[in-house]
């Protein structure tokens, strides 16, 4: 550690090097503490206690907000192994994650890079791309119901193209239901994340690209050889975000398919919602919360490992 990496208050110049180091460490810790304390306190007050509560309730059988709780230890978790719906939920969630992330992140990154080139019209495009994120749940439900209905816009569009044989009951056909919902996430996710990537890429100095272009590199090269390596951490963060939002997401299932038909769109997030709000098995739903929690931790650690290894490249 060189001296330039520490915060050196000018007043301390007269001490010996050792004392210097110790005093500095403490001073740093003190500043750290004061800067971090408000946020930490806020966070712990509202999140930590409820988180502990979630673990606590997951060991209970609790069938209604006003009914008594009964301690059943790890029974809720043992139930995971006997509950066929958990396997289905995990399978559906897994598919959703795989397709949802692969479908969004690469394209979003490329689009974000394109935006960061600031070609004419990029501001308009950026606003348009961000629009899906600004639409409320009510609006999205309306749009996609109108799209996926048997007599809706998608089928009509296919008819116009002469592809009426491809008409489906998109949301109620077991083979198309899940992918219809994933498509919504991809549709919104590409736009939203591309704006995020733009914001990150926009902070890179222009000279970086100019130097490469002088050497004759094209945009595609620059994107993957220059921008991408610099953005690996951020890409990791964005991937984590997307992952977590899909993992615990249930909005489209609630609004459009109710987890059906059968169990075609039954995901982990929806199962949690179902057990908590619809079937009133609060203990079991919290156990699912715990499950989601641990899956999330594993994934965050994994993605962090991958990106730190990649960025050492």
């Amino acid at each position, binding site marked *: 550690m060189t001296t330039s990496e520490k915060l050196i208050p000018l007043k301390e110049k007269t001490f010996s090097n050792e004392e210097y180091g110790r005093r500095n460490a403490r001073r740093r810790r003190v500043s750290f503490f004061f800067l971090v304390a408000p946020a930490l306190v806020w966070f712990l007050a509202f999140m930590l206690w409820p988180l502990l509560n979630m673990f606590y309730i997951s060991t209970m059988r609790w*069938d*209604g*907000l*006003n*009914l008594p709780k009964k301690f059943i230890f790890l029974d809720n978790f043992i139930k995971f192994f006997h*509950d066929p*719906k958990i396997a289905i939920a995990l399978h559906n969630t897994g598919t959703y994650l795989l397709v949802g992330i692969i479908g969004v992140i690469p394209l979003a990154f490329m689009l974000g890079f394109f935006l960061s080139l600031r070609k004419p019209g990029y501001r308009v495009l950026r606003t348009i791309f961000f629009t899906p994120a600004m639409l409320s749940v009510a609006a999205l439900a309306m749009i996609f*119901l109108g799209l*996926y*209905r*048997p*007599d809706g816009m998608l089928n009509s569009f296919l008819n116009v193209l002469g592809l009426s044989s491809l008409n489906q*009951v*998109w*949301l*109620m*056909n*077991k083979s198309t239901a899940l992918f219809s919902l994933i498509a919504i996430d991809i549709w919104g996710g590409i736009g939203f994340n591309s704006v995020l990537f733009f914001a990150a890429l926009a902070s890179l100095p222009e000279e970086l690209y100019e130097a490469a272009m002088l050497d004759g590199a094209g945009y595609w090269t620059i994107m993957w050889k220059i921008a991408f390596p610099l953005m690996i951490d951020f890409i990791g963060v964005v991937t984590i975000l997307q992952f977590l939002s899909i993992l615990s997401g249930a909005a489209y299932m609630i609004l459009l*398919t*109710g*987890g*059906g*038909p*059968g*169990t075609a769109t*039954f995901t982990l997030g929806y199962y949690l919602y*179902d057990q908590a*709000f*619809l*079937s*009133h*098995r609060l203990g079991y739903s919290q156990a699912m919360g715990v499950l989601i929690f641990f899956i999330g931790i594993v994934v965050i650690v994994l993605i962090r490992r991958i990106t730190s290894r990649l960025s050492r490249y």
Partner: protein
Amino acid sequence: MNKKIFSITIAMLMIASLLLTACGGKPSGPVTVTIWHNWGPDDAKYTAFKSILDDFRAANPDINLVDEVYVDSDIPLKVETAVTANQEPELVFTGGIGNAFTWVDSGVAVAVNDYLTEWGLADKFLDSAISQYSTADGTIIAFPIEGFSWPIWYNTKVLESVGLGIPKTTDELIAAAQALRAAGKDGPVVASGADGMGGKLFELILQSAMTDAEAKASLGGGDWTIPNAIKGVETFVALRDAGVFVDGVEGIDYGGAEARFGTGEVAMCHYGAWAFADDAMKPVAADVQLGGFPIPAGSPHQLPVYFKAFSAKGIFITPNGQAKIDAVEKFIKFIFQPEMIARLVESAGMNPSIKDVPVDESKLNPLFAQTLTMEAEVVFISDTYMPGAVTTDFGRITQEAFAPGTTAEKILADLAAAYAAIK
């Protein structure tokens, strides 16, 4: 962001927040009775309900009646949460469905048995209404108020175009389907296979083959080995495979089904009393005749069947309401006066839960008037006895049932599994 903008924003925020404090909050003063309901401006009952509340306020200046509108499906959660912190309203208008039946046990609502007798209301209510708000051990959980019928709507014009009348049996229905399809039209019945409304049609068809007791045992108790229950499912599948439902029915939702029927192209749909005044139905309302769903051969019923129930809304008294029971008593007695209920019946086509309501026939919605005289048999709606925990699975199973290719065996197996899972 420079300091000026920062401080201006903070200042504005503080001002705005003060304004909001002034606007929000509950007024204090004489006894306050708060009601949570969902009969807002977009509901047919809004005008009549508002007039009742205003008249009550005028007649009771010492009671501060506050009414707040919330989304119907949010109200149970809000009430349950509020009770834990003693913040619940005195009265709650919500359905006698699912979890509401646990409310007396869990302390969210108080039983009204004693109040019925003490306030002299015991004889005023229809027995069928009270029974739908009674638990197995006789506890009455709320005052029933909103009754509804849920008939089948027949577009006579469409049927006449192929020379047919209204089908009364499933054989006639299948014949009608074949005739209509041969004439290039779609199947006679449009339903919302994609959501809960279609599920009720599914139930209705099942119940057309069963007695009420058998329905209770299967839809309520999860016994799907009962022969008539199996027959009900098989009837449904047979009708579906015979093309009785419109194509793509499994993907149609509530609004879509209504729109479809409103175009006048489809012969039948399954809609409740709340839709009588809907704009979407207006174009075909004159051609509509209401009735029950055709019954299969060998059915224990004599006539086509339909749902009629009071599970839509009951007035629940909460612990906070119990603390202000005198004011609550005045309100309950006021609203259940026949003249008051008559307003709701006349303007909104609501089925009254009390007897002897003086209604001006000329004011009634014509479709509603039909329900009073139609030749059909009532079957008991499952709202009262279907366990709350199984309703979402049941919904998903009916969605699948509407899709072509789902066999009766699969449906029955799924149903048995769903009910077994909640034990």
